[in-house]
């Protein structure tokens, strides 16, 4: 065995993917961005390790994953509460913890939120493609063993850094832990096509209760609610920003996430702010959602505040 020791995958679960900040500068070639769906929780998993925000973390969706430590490892866990246990004892998210050789870290059923993030000192080792290890199955790029492959039984994960392990016990301050059980209020920055939606639909969009649909993945998350009507005369496909809210003819919005198609041809209600995107990534099917119009100044302020909190924690 090389490096500081590894985790062996005993059971893979529905989806566990290595994600760093994402793949940039290649979207004009049709290659998507990738990266953690909840950048906030992923950032805290890294801050707990003293890592840069973009170091590679393991994104565990829904649960069902079991990992066995082959050596002593100090890891961090943040994001969703997926009923994680170490040797059967409860392990709460938002903290740093130590596994000894032979310890078994298991993720069960989601209790609150959808995606948990497991951080390692220096990030996890992966196979970089186009400057990123972000695992995107559709593009066949990135991941712990390359070609966009998810974690599978028998695979091994190794921390990238050979530095000695940190002490356990550090915790994310309470003020920065998100309550994923509460109704989600998502801020939307209106865009160039917002005005094409009819007045009644705009009122409904920002005053109705939406629900997260079962059709939700790393490409996009659908919302169900009143059918929105858009009077756009007809669109050609154009580049899509992270968080863009497309509304197809059935009137049900699709929030485009990290693995979104690079271009799309439906009119857009607006764009979710980064904080709204992170929050939506943690909503299970049927979770209640409200959309709120927001200005860029406010969105920028909130985003920077969140990033600054992580950065100053990391520096200390």
């Amino acid at each position, binding site marked *: 065995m090389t490096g500081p020791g590894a985790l062996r995958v005993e059971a893979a679960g529905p989806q566990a993917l290595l994600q760093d900040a994402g793949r*940039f*500068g*290649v*979207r*004009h*070639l*049709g*290659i998507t*961005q990738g990266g953690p769906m909840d950048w906030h929780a992923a950032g805290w998993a890294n801050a707990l390790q003293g890592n840069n925000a973009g170091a590679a973390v393991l994104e565990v969706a829904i649960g069902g994953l079991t990992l066995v430590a082959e050596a002593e490892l100090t890891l961090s866990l943040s994001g969703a509460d997926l009923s994680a246990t170490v040797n059967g004892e409860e392990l709460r998210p938002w903290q740093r913890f130590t596994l000894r050789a032979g310890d078994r870290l298991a993720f069960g059923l989601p209790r609150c939120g959808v995606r948990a993030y497991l951080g390692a000192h220096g990030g996890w080792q992966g196979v970089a*493609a*186009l400057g990123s290890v972000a695992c995107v199955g*559709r*593009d*066949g*790029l990135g991941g712990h063993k390359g070609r966009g492959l998810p974690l599978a039984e028998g695979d091994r994960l190794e921390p990238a850094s050979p530095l000695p392990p940190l002490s356990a016990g550090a915790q994310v301050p309470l003020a920065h832990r998100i309550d994923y059980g509460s109704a989600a209020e998502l801020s939307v*920055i*209106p*865009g*160039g*096509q917002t005005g094409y939606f009819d007045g009644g639909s705009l009122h409904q969009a920002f005053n109705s209760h939406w629900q997260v649909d079962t059709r939700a993945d790393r490409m996009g998350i659908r919302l169900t609610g009143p059918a929105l009507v858009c009077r756009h*005369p007809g669109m*050609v*496909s*154009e*580049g*899509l*920003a*992270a*968080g*863009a809210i497309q509304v197809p003819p059935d009137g049900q919005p699709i929030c485009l996430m990290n693995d979104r*198609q*690079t*271009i799309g041809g439906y009119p857009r209600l*607006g*764009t*979710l*702010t*980064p904080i709204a995107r992170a929050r939506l990534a943690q909503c299970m099917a049927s979770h209640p959602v409200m959309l709120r119009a927001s200005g*860029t100044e406010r*969105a*920028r302020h909130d*985003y*920077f505040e969140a*990033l600054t909190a992580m950065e100053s924690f990391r520096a200390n």
Partner: protein
Amino acid sequence: MNPRLENAGLEAWLVRFADGIDPRLLPRISAFCRDCRSAFGESLVDLVPSYTTVLVQYDPWRLSDTRARQLIERVLSQLVPDTEESGGRIVEMPVWYDLSVGPELERIAAGNGWTTQQVAEAHAGSEYQVFALGFVPGFAFMGLVQPSLAMPRLATPRRQVPRGSIAIAERQTAAYPQQTPGGWNLIGRTPLVLFDAERTPMTTLEPGDRVRFVAVTREEFVELGGSTDPVAEVPQ
């Protein structure tokens, strides 16, 4: 029309050059992309050109949306469209036009009272522009094919379109870089590898390129590395 800037969230502006598809926009769009790269430098995260627009994604940590807007406006005010010489490259793409790999040659021929050979000649007879890459890595949206070649997408997409397939949907044409589901009409196959992450450049085509399809025989196609496995699925 003058280009318009549309808000696309906290980290992007969408620059709209026109409301409808027009091949004459490409020299402006490609010049804009190039000038944006130098104007934004390290603050640029991604540029996504498409038929009528360019999405400019910047790093909000380095630039405010107001500052990004000013940079874009400056680039636009100084824009000199690319010329024939400075514009996109000309790429020749060999194609084996045959019913075994392009079953919808027949559908398009029938609509015009043509032979399948005439469909192939018509497709290879024009130069096409690459408007955008998307769908899967390296998938180039090209056009416009002459109106007699235009054909709606299949009612039921194929579950597997073979890699290298040359296809038509409405007045667009494309080549499939990898085996994937797809609903376009298949008319032939290229032996070229259209996307390889290990290669520089990764994609055979880039937005702004001009493409000429060159008909090759079965023997030449095989010689160039093409797979002659027939298209298995019958279209609906």
